[in-house]
């Protein structure tokens, strides 16, 4: 039972880390960035490069973050900015971007599956059993990340302007807020977070050009259900991630993989606001 609980919390943490970047982009820019999976993959390959260069595996994190930030800035200017008024087209264009990113990675690294070194190995004893140390670290990372992001949003000027733009962009602009800059910064940070998440999850799984796709779909559904609130996202990750773990364990992992998407779809139909408070 304790193990199940740990599985749920750590799975929710991993989902939160992956989806957080997508959420802030959705909140500020009002578009779903389908290139999120591509940035995730870039983060994974940043970790691979770090492993191949025999650096300290923890170095993968800042490398990935930087790669995501720079690439995200580039993308926002060229692809996302012209599509602000056409959200459905923005989804398609960012999906096209994802394809381009995957192909470029494949050309550079080959299409095979690779593995990276985990920064920490082994398990620690918990509740009479042993549990993967790295997964527990992910829990810590999620909490810290969430705290930092909420702190920035609530406590800094950047966060305040971001929240203003989230609530009403036209009004913010008429009050003198440079919403273009806010959107630029948000998209870059969101992409950086996606890459960071990619570097974080690879020690648990593997690195291949298509690794981002299943995460994209789950993150997408979680964001739709959470609206624009990070706290709602945390709640959604716990509830839906928990459902995934429970169904995987007691029924079958294949149905478990579906649970987030199906439950989110049903929830959205019943309550379009999702987990966000009215």
């Amino acid at each position, binding site marked *: 039972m304790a193990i199940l609980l740990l599985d749920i919390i750590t799975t929710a943490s991993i989902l939160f880390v992956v989806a957080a970047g997508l959420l802030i982009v959705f909140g500020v820019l009002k578009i779903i960035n389908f290139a999120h999976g591509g940035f995730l993959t870039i983060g994974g390959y940043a970790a691979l490069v770090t492993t191949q260069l025999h650096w300290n595996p923890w170095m993968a994190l800042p490398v990935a973050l930087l790669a995501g930030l720079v690439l995200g800035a580039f993308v926002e200017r060229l692809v996302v900015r012209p599509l602000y008024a056409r959200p459905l087209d923005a989804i398609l264009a960012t999906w*096209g*971007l994802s394809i381009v990113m995957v192909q470029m990675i494949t050309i550079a690294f080959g299409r095979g599956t690779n593995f990276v070194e985990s920064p920490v190995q082994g398990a620690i004893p918990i509740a009479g059993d042993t549990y993967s140390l790295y997964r527990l670290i992910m829990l810590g990372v999620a909490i810290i990340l969430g705290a930092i992001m909420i702190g920035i949003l609530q406590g800094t000027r950047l966060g305040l302007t971001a929240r203003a733009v989230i609530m009403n962009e036209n009004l913010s602009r008429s009050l003198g807020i440079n919403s273009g800059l806010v959107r630029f910064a948000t998209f870059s940070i969101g992409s950086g977070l996606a890459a960071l998440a990619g570097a974080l999850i690879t020690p648990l799984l593997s690195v291949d050009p298509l690794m981002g796709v299943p995460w994209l*779909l789950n993150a997408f559904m979680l964001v739709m259900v959470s609206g624009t609130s990070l706290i709602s996202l945390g709640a959604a990750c716990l509830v839906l991630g928990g459902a995934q773990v429970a169904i995987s364990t007691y029924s079958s992992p294949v149905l478990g993989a579906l649970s987030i998407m199906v439950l989110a779809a049903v929830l959205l139909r019943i309550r379009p606001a999702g987990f966000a408070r009215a």
Partner: protein
Amino acid sequence: MPDSAALACPVRLPSQRGRTERRLILVFSVIALALAAAGPLLLDTYSISILIRSFLYGAIAVTVDILWGFTGILSFGQAAFFGIGAYALGLSVTQYDFTAPIVTAALIGGPLVAAAAAGLVAWLGFGPKVTPLYISVITLVLSVIFVQMIYSGGDFTGSSSGLSNFDTFDISMEGWFRVAGVFLVAVTAAGWIFVRSDFGRLLVAIRENEQRCRYCGINTARVKTLLLIGSAIITALAGFAYAGYNDVIAPDLGNFQFGTQLVIWVALGGRGTLIGPAVAAVLIDFISAWLSGSLPFIWQLIIGLVFIVVIVLLPQGLGPAVANLFRRGRTRPVAARLAPLPDADAAGSGALPAIQVESVSRNYGSLHVLQDVTFTAGAGELVSLVGPNGAGKTTLIRCLSDGQERSSGRVAIEGNPIGRLAPEACVRFGLGRKFQTPNVFDALTVAESLRIARSRQERLSFVRTADEVRLPAAAMRVVQATGLSSQLGTTVKHLSHGAKQALELAMVLAMEPRVLLLDEPTAGLTKSERSLIGEVLVELVRAHGLCILLIEHDLEFVREISSRIIVLHQGSIVMDGTVEEVTNSELVHTIYAGEPHAVAA
């Protein structure tokens, strides 16, 4: 409005153009069929094997274009329908035997299951107040569900292995080439005729302005559902054929990447052109297969880049850009003729009041926009609704025309309670609503817009384009008096603001309403246009016995034409009386000016 002289180019009738187009399509179909028959003799084996698949994909791309390019429904779910059709055949034959009854059952069962899935998705995604993004989400999820269900099927579905080497039709590769070719030609030709018909214009209308369609009484959710189901059936049939030919089926057939590829092909070929997507799908799939050995990644990279460029810079796709190079001269405008309807009797003796509003309130959380509004209006009344901004006038109109809108209270139109009915149902009680800013179809012509407005009374053909739009007298009067009758072939986007207002009024009148809700009908009009509208409204009330509820800020206009004025302030009715009573009332002047009224001159 000036009466125009004869146009330099005579206007063609829709039926003439329709007949010409249908003949051309038939000729092209025959040529294409001949190519399909002869193809195997000229092409090498590898090309034939690839093209079989490409042709099937082309047919699916046509359905995606009808859904997305024409109707605005972005669906990624065709992959799931394709997989359902393929697995229907594969599973039946593997579990049982390859016999005629089994195969026929699979041929019917596959599309049936796909149609049911489409129906479920439509029910989830096309409800009221659901964002268009949701249907894209749901169709994505459907593809994932399909793949995962195949994975979870263990030995039954073959899971990751898929099913292969099952008994299948004894048709040669050349034969399959012809089957796939015929399928593609049939779907494309039928699709073309469909989208060029009068009903096809409705698809564009829904994409442009679904709300206006619903206020014309069209059940847009049902139309979209039927379209999705139709595309599911065709796609499942393509899947069935693919399984029959390939003899190998795998879960990948239904994965969402395939769904997104279809969208990419449609975007590149030109959404809303039908032929473009079909050609793009066939060409790109074919070339991808040939290049898969030599430059697979570069090719995919190029496709991805071109796709991004197209979406960002050329939303129309490459097809029209290419076609424009070939276009010669001006095309002659096409428009239907107008024909008057015989005068209908002023229906209703007025036994039942036209509008009955009882204790209607509208709250947004703790904000009360309307509080306990009660009034009745009957046939032959021209009631003006006045009040300062924010009084709740437009909200009241919304509550009268959409059963979902009010928080509490009862509304009845012509004695029919609207309950929680959607706008298209409310409209059927004889209600017409004109919006504050012109709410029309920018991409259609004037004649087409009027025809859509008439669609409840005169069914739209799925094949033909009719020559006449029959309008009731009131609508005809508006159209002729405002000069729209000489602009029947003009695209609405190019009309002046005043003309669009007039068009919307004409469209609403074309529905032969008994009750008319007008939200600032004269906003932005010139003085002469305004007095014209005023005359029409008065005539409607006096000669045709309509009940009109009118929101206006122009108090002169209100005084001239109204028989009764209701004053709304902060969500409640503060006064309800004749024109004299209200205009001389102190209370009203206080509300408007903020201070008691000095005695008027």
